[in-house]
């Protein structure tokens, strides 16, 4: 999967997600199934997949707690005082399918790539330059600040801080967060200094370049045909 140009993967995933998100007709979903079913074979990290699968479906699960009772229509059965309707179940089911199809596609096509490379690809897809620069720098410094946060929390732990439900805890966490913001702010000033000292003039030069291969062209064409076919089915 890593060998396919990230730009192509992002565009493909994005088009697919929008098509699915806007789809209301439950009959057509058997055609939407094709892409994710192919992609499932490319999942390499199953542990991560299942973890992600759960975090996607928490919200969906909450929907299931409410939706079946909330939509009027043909009553299937009564659960306690509530009427479970066919329409309710059907709607919850639709949401579940949509969310998971989009998730599988995105997981394989985008989430497996390092965020910095994803942003790099978005840069080539004409995301505004200023936005890219901010995305690039903050993605770079998140691990640094996260390490800083972890070390600060470690230092708190070795000085016997144990979080509880009390005002000392909230104040300490407030101080910690304040400090993280303060340090980031001051670090940003030093980084700015360090950048201008190394002749930075507003352009981030990149070492890494994408290469569009013949394989990419073939995949690109087949994906386009697939999408056109689905749209055709939809209109019909």
């Amino acid at each position: 999967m890593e060998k396919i140009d990230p730009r192509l993967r992002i565009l493909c995933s994005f088009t697919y997600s929008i098509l699915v998100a806007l789809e209301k007709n439950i009959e057509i979903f058997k055609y939407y199934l094709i892409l994710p079913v192919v992609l499932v074979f490319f999942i390499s990290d199953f542990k991560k997949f299942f973890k992600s699968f759960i975090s996607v479906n928490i919200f969906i699960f909450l929907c299931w707690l409410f939706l079946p009772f909330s939509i009027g229509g043909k009553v299937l059965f009564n659960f306690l005082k509530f009427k479970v309707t066919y329409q309710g179940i059907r709607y919850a089911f639709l949401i579940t399918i949509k969310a998971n199809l989009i998730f599988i596609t995105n997981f394989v096509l985008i989430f497996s790539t390092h965020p910095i490379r994803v942003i790099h690809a978005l840069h080539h897809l004409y995301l505004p330059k200023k936005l890219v620069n901010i995305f690039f720098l903050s993605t770079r410094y998140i691990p640094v600040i996260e390490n800083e946060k972890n070390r600060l929390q470690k230092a708190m732990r070795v000085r016997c801080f144990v979080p509880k439900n009390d005002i000392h805890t909230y104040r300490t966490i407030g101080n910690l967060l304040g400090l993280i913001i303060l340090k980031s702010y001051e670090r940003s000033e030093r980084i700015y200094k360090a950048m201008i000292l190394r002749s930075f003039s507003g352009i981030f030069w990149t070492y890494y370049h994408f290469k569009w291969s013949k394989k990419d062209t073939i995949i690109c064409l087949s994906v386009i045909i697939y999408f056109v076919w689905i749209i055709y089915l939809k209109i019909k």
Partner: protein
Amino acid sequence: MDNISENQIIELKDINVSYPGTGIVLNNLSLVIYKGDRIGIKGANGSGKTTLLYTIVGLIKVEKGEIKIFGKKMEKESDFVEVRKKIGFLFQDSDDQLFSPTVEEDIAFGPLNLRLSRENVEERVNKTIKLLGIEKLKHRFSHTLSYGEKRVVAIATILSMEPEIYLLDEPTTGLDEKISKKIEKFLIENDLTYCIASHDLSFIKKVCNKIYILEKGKLYPF
């Protein structure tokens, strides 16, 4: 026999530690620290000194091996929570250790977590400040201090906890002689137990009675 294990503060037995990506850092390492020991650990950059000290206080999980502190086997986080009260840990990067607005509050943080009374905390703070001669810094904001000033304050924050054992990661890095000497004097003149990780051999030689070299994940006597 009984006496020995009573005096035994820290015992690491055949521990292995590794980082994802970096591979194994501590390899079947063993170390015993007795009460009154003044241990110095020297080692090249990246040899794992910091990792070793982290492991002792449970900030990094061991893959293999056994850690005993004050005779108690450490197994889960809550075991460590208990013993950390008696351990003073100086981080290599002082910035990590200073998280309160002012120097004074930072020095008070540890004692406050030990649930000491207010007067007691105040007394300890003032005592520590006097010991290191940093009266001038008391009301300064920690983040405006110079590098070396931060180092001294970081040391102050652990002295105020009056721990039974000190684990010091490069205590004299970036300090001038005047302050180095003060710390040296403090270490030598008091009846302490400590384990220092440092490059500064001349400093280690002055304040330690047992020196080890950390190399290829193991400790060798110097």
